[in-house]
């Protein structure tokens, strides 16, 4: 048995899942294909419907 979780993908969904798991005290391994996490959302300037800045 292992108590770790593997999160595949470091976009907004992967980051949120990993942070939630870490908050619960669970060891998370994140795998990301690109050199930086952030995914598509990092490419966005602002987000709807509030026009808040993205990541």
């Amino acid at each position: 048995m292992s108590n770790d979780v593997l999160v595949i993908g470091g976009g907004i969904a992967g980051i949120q899942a990993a942070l939630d798991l870490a908050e619960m005290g669970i060891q998370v391994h994140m795998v990301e294909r690109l050199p930086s996490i952030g995914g598509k959302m990092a490419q966005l300037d602002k987000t709807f419907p509030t026009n808040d800045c993205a990541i």
Partner: protein
Amino acid sequence: MEQVSGEVGAFQVAVRKKARYVNENLCTGCGACAEKCPTMVVDVFNAGLGNRKAIYKYFPQGIPSVFTIDAAACRQLGQGKKCGVCAKVCQAKAVDYDQKDTLIQLEVGAVVIATGYEVFDPSVIPEYGYDRIPNVVTALEFERLLSASGPTAGHLDRPSELALVKEMEEAEKEHKKLQRQVSQLEEKHGKPSSEIVAAFQSGTLPDDADLRNWALLAQDLASLEARLDSMNRRKATASVARKLAFIQCVGSRDFRFNPFCSSYCCMHSVKEAMIAHEHDNGVHSSIFCMDLRAVGRGFEEYKLRGGKQANIRYIRGRVAEITQDEALNPVVWYESTQNRQVVHETFDLVILATACVPSPGAAELARQFQVELDRNGFFKTDPLAPLNTSRPGVFVCGCAQGPMDIPESVAQASSAAARAAEIVAPARQAVG
């Protein structure tokens, strides 16, 4: 991902950690290497609209804040040339050309797949001219144009003008080189080039390789100057994009490509039109759609606000074709369903709201994990267990399971985290 075995509670996963060629424990992220790197590469993060160096950070705020060498583009690693500039300037001694990929063995109790999506490539729709007409861009490219940290620092410069500036830079470099060569020849022979060109054209030039070469160079210089002149005139009349057209459902709800609705693009286009208007109040946008789907909380109000405050016009009609006029303005041909006529209108810039399609690695990942994909290529889930894949202990959230917007992705991610925690949380094991 290399290999997966085991079952819920105890999966064994082999992960290949790709070489960065930079020691991430030593790199301080100072950027001296990228400043001095001689190789320019097209910047994927800026949707191909800008350039970066071969040693790079994916984007300025990228985490982890360390540099990576793009081995294929690097002179030293990919092209076998002598370079080593980045290693020389790195004070932290972090550059390591001998770094190798490493295989990491993990044992995990549960897996969350959050591999996201890919943007549909609109060049397969010939009538929209994406690869022919420079001023037709995708929504993601437009996002980079709008961004203050993007290639145009947020100004709505048109791609045709960006290309012109680049072309002019190259032409000016070439011009300097030719001018230097020609003036050297003029000095050497003590004659003006015009005399030689005239003699060459009338066929009275003595049969001398040096003189012939001079005449050809001088001719090239003259034609380059004429080209630079016309480019300068074009640049003088160039203006920023103020009249925008957004085309919805590009590759979505289209049975030739993807039958499904990509769900976020309607609001994405409204947002881009609003941000563009915020940046420059002279911007007018037209959104061409079959219907505008504003189903989330606050979305309908957002759409109406766009129409009232941000000069957005919503036009019901599917665009049939995009052509280009002589000034490189895209012309949009569509059927107006209000007055039942085929009409056309000229714009400064056309933005294609491209579909959300499965990420290219999804099929391979599904094979490794032995989970099913749905008929569109996203990870298959059950309507009553929307985070479960077909394999126990493997969950999926966000656009990996289908198109959705950011709030929905975040909500699903938290749910998937909770489901994964149910499996690995020590309390559960104590009871079980």
